[in-house]
């Protein structure tokens, strides 16, 4: 009132401004129904400039697939603007429906904030159509319209949110918790039913882990081979660099290679150009841009070597001309397995001939089974991991029950584990080790990875057979290196 008295003109101007804004809000233009028309209004940062979003063919294709299918798994080269395209689709859907809600899970908080900023930036060209209702970094609510959450997949999940329609799991191969987050996202989307779209997107990593499993399951062809064919230009659908199919479970699998990008595809020797630009090694370039599932930084055992070693067979008899060794990785009542591996050595070649792998069994049962293996194969050496204490109990009991056998207590520490794993790696590389096809060793080798300084199974996977095999090999190697008596000359006495 005081203000009115002092400056009636200012009050009048404010009133005009308010009514103008209210008018504008009530007279917002209708958002275009077609995504292509919608995004042509959006402003994005591209090539160092702010420009109108002109989608490439593959971006349009992706949004059409999102309209038709509920689940899409994408393997892609970097820098194709897939995350941008998906977020623009989410934004479009949010503009069209006040009940719309979606979630984008990004690899880190920085990525989540960056995508949130880019999505808000797109609103810059839509001032006459829609307005943001908040100023939150991790959550975009549109006035009288839907909402989008931007989350850090290393920390957050989607529990306690309901009726979320669309999910993006970005860089899923590199997110440790993505499996749990994906599992938790199902109840959030349950009420939405068929309307939900779940996108699992990543550049390639190792051929193991949840993302690889999602990408490679239910296909009637090898994804890695398809990626190589697409990268070579020998295979494509609508345009070079694009290939997609529906798997046996109705999930769209989409391969996007930089050949589909109108600019990148024109750069001569693009991969070399990328290497110079990124200042990185060629293996990383191949993985990030050329759809190669090679990652020595993550995957410990080469998939080719693992595949080549899966040629052996189980043997339930004693070969007198061979030496046998047993490696034991003990476990208690948890989810870990108690594993004993029988390794046969003959002529410098090793083969796994028997595996005992059980969990949640009594120690008496485990001891009985190990006893059977010892009685059958008469091993020259038995290695038992004693770190943690449980193994020590087994070692003491077995040493007592099987006196005269050579038991080795093996301790796995931060220093000794890489040596043990290195022995196994070397045996695979020298092609002197084989194991039966289809046994758990192959799977566990492929999902064994290096996480920082730690060597361990991928989340949700086990490494008990890998370790038991390492113990058996270590004992065998010790015997071969030093006190090997098998090739000594013999004489008759008495």
């Amino acid at each position, binding site marked *: 009132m005081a203000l009115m008295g002092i400056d009636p003109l200012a009050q009048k101007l404010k009133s005009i401004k308010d009514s103008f804004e209210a008018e504008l809000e009530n007279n917002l233009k209708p958002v275009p129904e077609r995504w292509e028309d919608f995004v042509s209004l959006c402003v994005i940062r591209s090539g160092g400039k702010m420009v109108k979003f002109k989608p490439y063919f593959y971006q349009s294709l992706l949004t059409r697939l999102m309209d038709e299918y509920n689940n899409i798994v994408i393997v892609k080269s970097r820098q194709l603007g897939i995350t941008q395209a998906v977020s623009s689709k989410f934004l479009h859907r949010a503009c069209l429906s006040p009940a719309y809600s979606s979630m984008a899970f990004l690899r880190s908080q920085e990525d989540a904030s960056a995508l949130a900023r880019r999505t808000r930036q797109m609103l810059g060209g839509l001032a006459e159509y829609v307005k943001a209702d908040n100023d939150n970094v991790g959550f975009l609510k549109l006035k009288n319209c839907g909402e989008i959450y931007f989350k850090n997949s290393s920390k957050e999940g989607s529990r306690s949110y309901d009726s979320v329609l669309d999910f993006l799991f970005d860089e899923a191969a590199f997110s440790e918790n993505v499996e749990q987050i994906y599992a938790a996202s199902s109840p959030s989307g349950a009420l939405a039913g068929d309307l939900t779209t779940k996108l699992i997107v990543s550049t390639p990593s190792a051929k193991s882990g949840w993302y690889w499993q999602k990408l490679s399951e239910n296909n009637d062809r090898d994804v890695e081979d398809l990626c190589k064919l697409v990268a070579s230009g020998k295979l494509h659908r609508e345009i070079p660099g694009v290939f997609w199919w529906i798997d046996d479970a109705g999930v769209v699998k989409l391969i996007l290679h930089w050949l589909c990008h109108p600019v990148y595809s024109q750069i001569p020797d693009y991969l070399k150009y990328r290497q110079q630009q990124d200042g990185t090694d060629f293996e990383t370039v191949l993985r990030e841009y050329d759809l190669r599932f090679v990652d020595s930084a993550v995957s410990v055992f080469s998939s080719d070597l693992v595949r080549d070693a899966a040629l052996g067979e189980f043997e339930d008899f004693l070969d007198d001309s061979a030496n046998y060794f047993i490696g034991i990785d003990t476990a208690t009542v948890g989810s870990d397995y108690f594993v004993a591996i029988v390794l046969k050595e003959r002529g410098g070649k090793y083969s796994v001939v028997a595996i005992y792998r059980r969990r949640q069994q009594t120690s008496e049962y485990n001891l009985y089974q190990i006893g059977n293996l010892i009685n059958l194969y008469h091993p020259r050496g038995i290695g038992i991991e004693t770190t943690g204490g449980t193994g020590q109990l087994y070692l003491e009991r077995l040493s007592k029950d099987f006196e*005269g056998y*050579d038991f080795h207590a093996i301790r796995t520490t931060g220093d000794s584990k890489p040596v043990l794993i290195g022995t196994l790696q070397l045996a695979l590389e020298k092609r002197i080790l084989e194991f039966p096809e289809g046994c758990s060793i192959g799977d566990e080798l492929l999902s064994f990875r290096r996480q920082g300084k730690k060597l361990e199974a991928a989340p949700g996977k086990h490494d008990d057979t890998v370790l038991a095999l390492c113990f058996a090999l270590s004992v065998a190697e010790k015997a071969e290196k*030093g*006190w090997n*008596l098998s090739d*000594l*000359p*013999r*004489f008759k006495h*008495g």
Partner: protein
Amino acid sequence: MDKIEYVIEVIGCFYSFKNTHILIGGIDKKNQLRLHTEVVKNNFPIKETAELLNNYSHNIWINTHEPLRTAIGSRCKGELSFDKDNESENEVLEDLFLSLKQSGRLSLATDVKIQGNNAHNCTFAHF
């Protein structure tokens, strides 16, 4: 079959109450170590071990074990430590074993199994 003549007869005895391992043999005229008898005993007292060893007139080598050494007295030719902190000595033993093996100067009787790969005893006996 000709009887083997030994220039020197030796015994290697690795004693622990729970697991005692004795190898008996000798060095023949060709300077070859031949091990013809193996005795494995569990829960075997020192006194009985000493009595068993006293049945032979061989030189006896044992692991470092004061009570056993006292029990066999002057028959003990020498002692060797197999403690973990004595690894350099173990390496010397291993080298000697490999050298004997490589030069064909070590052989075992057919019924000598050396279960438990207690092979350092072979080299041990060579002393």
